[in-house]
């Protein structure tokens, strides 16, 4: 059988294997033949009757009539048959392919299961993330003409500073504009909710009665606010959000008419609202939990303004229109207007996280597809004989390709089904992740809907074709001669196939390196923060925020008195090392745009966003919070001089260089000068990532604020905090606990989105790593099997165990190394995307890169260890006896 010629079968034989189907060409040929016969018969007859040949022919044609018309008629009549037969043949092919595919998968159920599971994981993860992207980024907010809703701020200093607008300004805008359909006012609040059950801190919103009709939203239950409710002296009423209603009132109708307290003041619940998300950015998707009517107030009050553009008006046009309205605001002399789309605001909030996750998950899908492609390539080589026989008996290349693509498409769709099922199960799990972050809150509301299902099917089909094409192409061009000779399909020896498989594995490893690096950077950034803190010593520190309601503590002296008693009491508690009072905890942000004067310097209308943060603190605040003093000292409570401590960022920006201490600053044209007595470090918090520190000014605590924070340092903050709060509550039940947190808890809360991102990205990275390891294992194991004969020969010739193992490992290490190098290069480029999420870790952090490289090397060794062991067990006698 040395020279077996490649069989070429005549076309007719090949046609026997095809479904007979009629084409337009066949139909026209038939008609022409039929007509020719008719004309010939007629002509012959006329000649027999004595007519001359030429005129007989002409006469036959004349009597026949319009031939072209007949052909057109027949084409039209037969078209449905042609189409039907084409469809029938296509369907018959498909049915045959599907039957065949079923047989193939039944024959190797393990292969089918691994492929479907791999794809299911990839598609499931992708669908889950797409579901969130679709719901949050692509679906408009559920308000009337949501695309034209804008929130409007005052802007000043050449548009560099924005502020919530004053009511007087909003009134002027409302009556003077020509570009908006309306402007409504809201105002964000934070309350301690009481009444029944545990008191808790809730996000709330005071809304003007026209807000809900303006948004096109109506209560699920009960009634909305009326103009009457907003009058001064009206009975206090409140709306609760659906979430709160379910949680706190057990979704009962009896909630209507119930009384709740907000900061100790009673309100009657009159209605239940659907989520008002996207209104007021910082509530995320939960929206405000409690709403009360916005009562009228002085024109200098600041509110949030929501407007709707008239159709066809751009935000720029509206901003120019509003900016031209002459109105004076004490905060910003002649304010301009700054508009942001309500949906835009909301989307920007989620965009970076979600696009990042979508990118990561696409990489996981890529690995899954690559793995399956690799499996298919290996399998198609071992199916060479079958394919060769099918070619030999007349299967066309296109038909064969189609068969192989049918198999991969079936795999893809099965994976898609499994994946959709996984997504359906995974979304609630993700949404339940604690701590709750804006993104997990968003996921809680996400549903699988037709668009998402369509997406899943699309991805499944695309994946099926993508990973099916390369192997199909390789397999559909077998060398029939070789195959029929019975020669083993020497897959491993085919350089093209080997290169393809190696390339696929390298790609997988590279992609998982990129993912691992991203996850690693996030983990390290979290660890760095927790370990070091920044300008603050979080261990053992907690913050108890209290409020003194004006009805119980009407005078400043009453407030000073109760605060002093509380601080004394806390200091005396066992386990407490120190306690101090401040207006806000270190992460509290009370930034305003000050009218800042520095003595001896021209007035500084701050260039750029000139916000300055303020806090009023006791002298020991810095020591207790662990905020390092960089120069000078804290204010001395005994001197009469007005002292101030400033943060480093403030000093660097506003004070004369080299003469920070002793500089005198003043806010407003009148008022006393304060002397800078100390400069401290600026604490940095997760939310600040990337942004410069807010310039801070600390002034001596005044003692009579209606709300305060008590900072407590003790050995075991988490354990002690409940006792501290309880004893405070026992001292005077009129005091309201706003929030008590250890600093670690507060920081964790600030980290929630990064933590969520980190968790999910780590899960993806691990998934990718596992898939890549499986891929590598598959390739190495397959090549060991292919080389059984060769290894047998080597062992027979005296190769020792280590030589054999080394041979196998060399291959896998080569692959792993190329993958790692490529992947690290890719990571260096890709991790730039998460730079804004990183804290104190550069996107090119060498330690992370090194660790990832190490992990990959270890996993690669592990993945090749098993096949290497298998190679060791090869018995040369068996190997040489077998046909290789």
């Amino acid at each position, binding site marked *: 059988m040395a020279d077996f010629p490649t069989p070429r079968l005549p076309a007719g034989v090949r046609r026997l294997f095809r479904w007979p189907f009629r084409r337009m060409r066949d139909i026209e040929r*038939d008609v022409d*033949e*039929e*007509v020719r*016969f*008719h004309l*010939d*018969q*007629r002509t012959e007859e006329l000649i027999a009757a004595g007519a001359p040949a030429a005129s007989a022919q002409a006469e036959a044609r004349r*009597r*026949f*009539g*319009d*031939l072209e*018309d*007949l052909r057109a*008629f*027949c084409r039209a*009549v*037969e078209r449905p*048959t042609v189409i039907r037969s084409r469809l029938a043949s296509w369907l018959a092919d498909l049915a045959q392919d599907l039957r065949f595919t079923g047989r193939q998968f039944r024959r190797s159920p393990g292969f089918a299961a691994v492929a479907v599971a791999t794809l299911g994981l990839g598609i499931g993860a992708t669908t889950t993330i797409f579901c969130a992207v679709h719901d949050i980024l692509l679906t408009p907010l559920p308000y009337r003409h949501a695309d034209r809703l804008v929130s409007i701020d005052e802007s000043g200093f050449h548009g560099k500073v924005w502020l919530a607008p004053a009511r007087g300004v909003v009134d002027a805008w409302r009556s003077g504009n020509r570009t908006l359909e309306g402007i409504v006012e809201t105002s964000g609040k934070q309350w301690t909710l009481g009444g029944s059950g545990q008191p808790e801190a809730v996000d709330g919103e005071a809304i003007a009665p026209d807000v809900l009709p303006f948004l096109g939203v109506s209560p699920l239950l009960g009634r909305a606010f009326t103009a009457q409710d907003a009058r001064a002296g009206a009975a206090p009423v409140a709306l609760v959000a659906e979430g709160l209603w379910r949680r706190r009132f057990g979704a009962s109708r009896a909630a209507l008419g119930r009384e709740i307290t907000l900061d100790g003041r009673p309100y009657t619940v009159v209605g239940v609202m659907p989520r008002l998300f996207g209104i007021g950015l910082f509530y995320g998707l939960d929206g405000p939990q409690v709403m009360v009517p916005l009562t009228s107030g002085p024109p200098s009050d600041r509110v949030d303004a929501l407007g709707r553009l008239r159709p066809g008006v751009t935000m720029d046009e509206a901003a120019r229109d509003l900016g031209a309205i002459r109105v004076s605001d004490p905060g910003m002399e002649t304010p301009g207007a700054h508009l942001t789309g309500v949906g835009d605001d909301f989307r920007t909030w989620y965009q970076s996280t979600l696009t990042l996750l979508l990118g990561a998950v696409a990489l996981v899908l890529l690995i899954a597809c690559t793995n399956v492609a690799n499996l298919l390539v290996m399998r198609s080589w071992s199916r060479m004989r079958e394919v060769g026989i099918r070619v030999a008996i007349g299967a066309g290349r296109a038909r064969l390709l189609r068969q192989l693509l049918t198999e991969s498409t079936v795999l893809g769709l099965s994976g898609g089904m499994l994946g959709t099922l996984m997504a359906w199960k995974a979304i609630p799990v993700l949404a339940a992740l604690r701590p709750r972050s804006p993104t997990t809150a968003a996921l809680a509301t996400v549903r699988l809907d037709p668009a998402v299902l369509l997406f899943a099917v699309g991805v499944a089909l695309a994946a099926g074709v993508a990973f099916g094409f390369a192997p199909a192409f390789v397999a559909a061009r077998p060398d029939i001669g070789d195959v029929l000779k019975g020669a083993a399909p020497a897959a491993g020896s085919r350089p093209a196939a080997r290169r393809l498989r190696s390339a696929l594995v390298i790609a997988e490893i590279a992609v998982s390196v990129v993912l691992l690096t991203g996850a690693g950077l996030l983990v390290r950034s979290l660890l760095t923060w927790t370990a070091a803190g920044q300008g603050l010593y979080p261990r053992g520190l907690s913050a108890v925020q209290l409020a003194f309601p004006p009805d119980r503590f009407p005078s400043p002296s009453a407030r000073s008195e109760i605060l002093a008693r509380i601080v004394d009491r806390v200091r005396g508690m066992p386990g407490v090392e120190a306690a101090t009072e401040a207006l806000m905890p270190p992460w509290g942000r009370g930034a305003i745009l000050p009218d800042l004067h520095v003595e001896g310097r021209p007035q500084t209308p701050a260039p750029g966003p000139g916000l300055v943060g303020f806090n009023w603190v006791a002298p020991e605040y810095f020591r207790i919070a662990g905020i390092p003093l960089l120069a000078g000292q804290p204010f001395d409570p005994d001197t009469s001089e007005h002292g101030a401590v400033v943060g480093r960022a403030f000093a660097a920006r506003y004070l004369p260089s080299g003469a920070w201490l002793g500089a005198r600053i003043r806010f407003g044209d009148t008022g006393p000068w304060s002397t800078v007595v100390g400069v401290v470090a600026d604490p940095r918090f997760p939310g600040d990532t990337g942004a410069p520190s807010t310039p801070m000014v600390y002034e001596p605590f005044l003692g009579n604020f209606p709300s305060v924070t008590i900072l407590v340092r003790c050995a075991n903050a988490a354990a002690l905090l409940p006792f501290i709060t309880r004893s405070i509550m026992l001292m005077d039940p009129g005091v309201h606990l706003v929030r008590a947190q250890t600093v670690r808890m507060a920081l964790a809360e600030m980290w929630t989105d990064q933590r969520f991102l980190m968790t999910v990205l780590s899960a993806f990275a691990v998934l990718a790593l596992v898939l890549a390891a499986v891929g590598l294992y598959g390739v190495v194991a397959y090549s060991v099997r292919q080389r059984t004969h060769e290894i047998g020969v080597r062992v027979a010739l005296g190769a020792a165990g280590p030589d054999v193992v080394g041979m196998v490992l060399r291959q896998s290490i080569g692959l792993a190394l190329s993958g790692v190098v490529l992947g690290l290069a890719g990571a260096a480029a890709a991790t730039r995307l998460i730079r804004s999420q990183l804290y104190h870790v550069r996107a090119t952090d060498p330690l992370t890169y090194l660790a990832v490289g190490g992990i990959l090397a270890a996993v690669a060794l592990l993945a090749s260890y098993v096949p290497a062991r298998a190679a060791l067990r090869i018995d040369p006698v068996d190997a040489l006896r077998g046909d290789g």
Partner: protein
Amino acid sequence: MPRHPSELLYGTLDVLVLKTLTWGPRHGYAVAKWIEERTAGELEIVDAALYKALHRLERSGAVRAEWGLSENNRRAKYYSLTPRGRQVLRAEAETFRRFSAAAARVLEAR
């Protein structure tokens, strides 16, 4: 005024063709010849129209076509009546008879 035959025959040509085939399968030319002879040239049917009728009937399932060999050994397409064609023919013939009887009564009425 002589009418154009096709105008007269448009609906009835199908019936005539079906009738022709009741005596067995024939090719198109034979059908044409048969109708010419039977109507003694009274109805001159354009051949193309006849073929249209045949193809139309084939599509509707009233006749079946098959390639066969003609008397002089040439490939020709033979048409034969299907059971459905027989049914159609019976129904059409009945309608035609009733119509011509009714028409005759009207025309002969005094």
